[in-house]
């Protein structure tokens, strides 16, 4: 398609002829309200919010279903178009229960945003005259439905129809009685179901997992990458430190990255935040007794000096590349052989043809690039130093030092706590070789050392 020039609000823009006008508006941050349009779902044209004036056309047109033509002159502002939007918004809101105080979407709700931007009218309808539907319906797959809050944008039904192709959701009834529902007796059930919560522009679909746990304006979002598998889906970690409490992650949200995951993540990855704060190893543990940091370092030195036979270092292939490099240098320094066995992380049942990979180790590609051995060592070791590898207990060793993030069932000679990925920073290389940096999101009140911090301390203790 050829490039053409269009004029929007007296400014010139170059766009592909025949592409959607709304894409151009979104790309250049030109404010246009919309509910039903979504880049992943395409134009549907049912919400009518994205009205713009186009010169030469009698009536306002919807930007999401207007193709760009040579010499188009578009206006997104002005009294006329704003009154059109206000009237459409009032129609959308006419039966809305306005229960923002108890709605989890409040704060990130498009209805609220658009009302403040374009609405600000006094309601013509009394609360008592509104049409009522069912509220708090458990749709399954951690999704709650409130039919009253719905604006019938059909994003959720289009997601289940066009993207997951599971067709669970549909709009039933007509006029005021139209509402989103599943088939009688059927549940929303697919491994990507919770994406409809993000897709829903209003509070009709909310997460049962996140329900009432936080108001969204208290949350801080830190960009990161999901560690559920080698796909490396981009996420936001939404976290908050409540007064007198420790920093807590409340949810993962997908972050757009067209090169990796598009707009979505799988439910398993979305809920994987829970494992980061449950059953964590926080104490240093020597032969089953809690010890101080100085004692632990002393015990480490003693164990390392007294090691007979080969020393094996195991590195978790979920660790960041920087951490793997540091472990590699450390292993060379103490004359140990380094392994990052991948066997444990093969999971064919998990895989699908979209966002789930059978390789469950997030940084398996980096292990490959760094040429670290990925087999399970078979020989008996004099000393095994494991950096959070789940297969540490399978290796025969006289002495074991285990740095681990979570409390395991196996007891070792020396067990030391280790930060999880959200408490550390580094680079992941996904299975397609795309490098992605994850900044540190969580700062615990009592920090647990990361791999690099441990290695720095150990090197200091060596001397």
């Amino acid at each position, binding site marked *: 398609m050829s490039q053409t020039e269009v004029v929007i609000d007296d400014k010139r823009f170059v766009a592909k002829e025949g592409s959607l006008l709304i894409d151009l508006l979104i790309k250049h941050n030109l404010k246009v309200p919309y509910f039903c349009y979504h880049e992943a779902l395409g134009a549907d044209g049912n919400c009518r919010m994205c009205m713009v004036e186009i010169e030469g056309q009698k009536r306002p047109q919807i930007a999401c279903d207007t193709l760009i033509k040579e010499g188009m002159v578009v206006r997104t502002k002005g009294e006329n178009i704003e009154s059109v939007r206000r009237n459409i918004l009032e129609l959308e809101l006419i039966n809305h229960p306005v*229960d*923002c*105080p*108890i709605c989890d979407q*409040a704060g990130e709700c498009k209805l609220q945003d658009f009302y403040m931007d374009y609405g600000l009218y006094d309601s013509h309808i009394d609360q008592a005259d509104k049409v009522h539907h069912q*509220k*708090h319906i458990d749709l399954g797959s951690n999704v709650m439905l409130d039919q009253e809050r719905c604006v019938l944008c059909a994003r959720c039904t289009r997601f289940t129809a066009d993207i997951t192709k599971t067709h669970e959701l549909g709009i039933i009834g007509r006029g005021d009685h139209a509402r989103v529902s599943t088939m009688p007796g059927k549940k929303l059930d697919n491994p990507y179901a919770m994406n409809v919560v993000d897709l829903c522009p209003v509070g009709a679909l909310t997460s049962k997992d996140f*329900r*009432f*746990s936080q*108001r969204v*304006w*208290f949350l801080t979002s830190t960009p990161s990458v999901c560690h559920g598998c080698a796909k490396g889906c981009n996420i936001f970690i939404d976290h908050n430190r*409540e*007064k007198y409490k420790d920093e807590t992650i409340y949810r993962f949200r997908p972050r757009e990255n067209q090169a990796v995951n598009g707009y979505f993540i799988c439910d398993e990855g979305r809920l994987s935040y829970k494992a980061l704060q449950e059953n964590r190893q926080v104490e240093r543990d020597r032969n089953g007794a809690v010890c101080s940091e100085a004692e632990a370092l002393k015990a480490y030195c003693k164990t390392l000096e007294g090691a007979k036979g080969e020393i094996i270092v195991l590195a978790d292939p979920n660790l960041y590349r920087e951490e793997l490099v540091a472990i590699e240098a450390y292993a060379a320094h103490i004359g140990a052989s380094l392994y990052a066995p991948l066997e444990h992380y093969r999971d064919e049942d998990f895989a699908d043809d979209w966002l789930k990979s059978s390789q469950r180790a997030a940084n398996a590609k980096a292990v490959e690039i760094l040429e670290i051995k990925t087999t399970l060592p078979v020989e008996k070791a004099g000393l095994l130093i494991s950096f959070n590898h789940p297969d540490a207990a399978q290796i025969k060793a006289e002495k074991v030092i285990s740095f681990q993030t979570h409390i395991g069932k196996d007891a070792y000679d020396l067990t030391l706590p280790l930060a999880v990925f959200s408490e550390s920073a580094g680079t992941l290389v996904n299975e397609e070789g795309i490098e992605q940096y994850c900044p540190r999101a969580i700062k615990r009140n009592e920090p647990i050392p990361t791999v690099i911090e441990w290695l720095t301390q150990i090197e200091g203790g060596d001397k």
Partner: protein
Amino acid sequence: MDNKVKVVPRYGSSFKDRLYLPAIYQGMKITFKHLVGNAADSNAVDTLEYPEEQPTDITDRYRGLHRLTHRQDDTIACVACFMCATACPADCIFIEATEREDGEDEKMPKRFAIDTLECVFCGYCVEACPCDAIRMDTGIFSLTGNSREDFVLEKDQLLAHKGAFGEEKSRARK
């Protein structure tokens, strides 16, 4: 936005105001009136022998200790929307929300606590509440305790406080 801006005239720039002397005279007049009156009759001194004597001039605008109001059916009016906690400049309101099972709304506080030692009694929580669920009209102006924890008022205590000026129930909830 423009049509909502109200221009308020600025006072204090006239010659009389800038002299300051008339205002000082006004103030001193009251001071001396009390001085002479009190010196003449020490029984008429306008003080209160607290705590034997309790104040009687607390009005319904007085910001006393907080209370949580009830609905008409005597259940809690609060829906745990966190507006008060958001508005609170002292960050002293601690709420944990939970599911409400009795069919009224969906949400209610599992825990609602105010640390009155941190509270600055600004009344923003009352202003922010969309449900008329928190009020400061108890008329209670003193709170005593033996430990810091005693001053953290939990949901039950806040619900037990009575309104001192006749309005018992939340006016915003059925």
